[in-house]
């Protein structure tokens, strides 16, 4: 029932007496017990709902959160992490109700809640127009220094690999990268995944370095 409500397929006007549930879902935070103890209890209840094994429940929680953040980012939310956490809080409240029942992939339940929250979010927030122009020269210089520093932290093989992967300057990029994958003896998709991981390491390193220099 909740999934149907959250997916917008079930409406109060159909006379099913679900008004209070819909209200809970949409304005859950208004009825939340503010005490930390209750919030923790609700959160633990939600984890048990995800999986009775606490370790597997934690992994599922992390994975769903990661994907929700990605979706919220794609939907243009300015702070997708915060919104995802609020989504979890709200689901925790709902799942703690004694009469709660849901069948199906829990990820989709979260998705339904998140969709509603996105609508709320854009009712109250303004979307900031993106500024993709280059930063100040000082900022560019700091980032450039950080990139050098973080490149040096990579293993020699990863460093050479990322420079070659992104060092393509002429000709079709897909052909170039296919040839590179052939030379390395791996499928192109495996190469893409590997490059993504190296790049993420490098990006996180540069971000941390930049923040520490600004501070």
């Amino acid at each position, binding site marked *: 029932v909740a999934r149907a409500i959250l997916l917008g397929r079930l409406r109060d006007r159909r006379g099913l007496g679900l008004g209070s549930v819909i209200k809970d879902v949409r304005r859950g935070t208004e009825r939340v017990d503010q005490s930390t103890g209750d919030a923790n209890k609700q959160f633990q209840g939600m984890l048990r709902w995800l999986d009775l094994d606490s370790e597997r429940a934690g992994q599922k929680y992390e994975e*769903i959160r990661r*994907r*929700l953040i*990605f*979706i919220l*980012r*794609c939907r*243009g*939310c*300015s702070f*997708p992490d915060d919104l995802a956490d609020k989504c979890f809080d709200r689901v925790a409240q709902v799942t703690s109700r004694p009469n709660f029942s849901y069948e199906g*992939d829990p*990820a*989709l339940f*979260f*998705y339904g809640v998140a969709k509603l929250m996105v609508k709320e979010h854009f009712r109250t927030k303004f*979307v*900031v127009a*993106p*500024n*993709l122009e*280059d*930063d100040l020269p000082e900022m*560019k210089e700091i*980032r*450039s220094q950080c*990139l050098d520093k973080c*490149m040096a932290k990579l293993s*020699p*093989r990863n460093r*050479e*690999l*990322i*420079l*070659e*992967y*992104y*060092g*393509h*300057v002429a000709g079709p*990029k897909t052909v170039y990268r296919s040839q*590179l994958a052939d*030379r*390395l003896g791996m499928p192109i998709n495996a190469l*893409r*995944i590997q490059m*993504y991981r190296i*790049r993420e390491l*490098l*990006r996180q390193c*540069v*971000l941390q370095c930049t923040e520490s220099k600004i501070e």
Partner: protein
Amino acid sequence: MNEHSENMALIRRYLLGETNENEGERVEKILLTDQVEFENALILEDELSDDYVQGFLSKSERLSFESNYATTKERRQKVWFARMLNTRAAGIANSVRERPERTWKDALWLVGINERFANRFAIAYLCVSVLMIILILSLVHQTANLKTELEKEQNRGREISAKTSDLDAQLLDEKSRADDLRRQLGGHDANRNSPNVRPLLTASLELLPGISRGPEGIQVLVVPQEVKFIEIDLKVLQEDYKQFRAELYDTAGREIAMQDLLQPVKRNAETVVSFKYPSEYLSAGGYKLQLKVADGRSDPILLGNYYFRIKHRS
């Protein structure tokens, strides 16, 4: 086009904000339930940033990207990071390509991705390995030879030291023989006449005291021409004296010589005082030696008379 490729294209449009509501929900459900497609979406998100900064997006895609994609802080970070990384990598690639061929190949060798060079390296490595093996075998052979030579030299050294020991032993024997001969020469007259004894420089005689015999009973000392000294050993019966005096007289009673402060010596369990005198001052004839005790405090005490005759032999 298979399902995966369709999904890829759909996700790419979704990331650019080009999907309608139904398509968007479909993509979102795929992302939530399909691990592989979610990983692909993450990679595509980065690749879109790359395509944007490298100018590979179409005009419409570029517009969509700028209006829909880069709306969050994290995505804007991805864009500047992509710009920085691509610029840096392209700059390094260009600088490497401008360098000599060998340098570029060296860089590739570091990551092991240039097979041709790797093959050459393998051949070179093989050659070096073979040379090393030959060198090691040669060294082992030389070491074995040196060991053999060393053993030979050690054997020779042992033989030489054994010979040296023998020679030392012979030398000691010769020395002891020489000592014996010297003693014999200083002792009995009979030894002096031995044909095996070398020419004498000293002629010696051993006398007892107080014996007075006729001219035929007196001991005769034969003095060859080459003898320079005579030595008369006077046997002393009293052993408690430390210094003696010997006085030499001829048959007419004239004193010919006197030697004082003579020390007694032990020879063959007997106490002997030696009187030594140049033979050239003694002509052939009879002589008498008087042995006295001279302690320097009182007059000398006569202990005994010793008689002998000298006979020169040319």
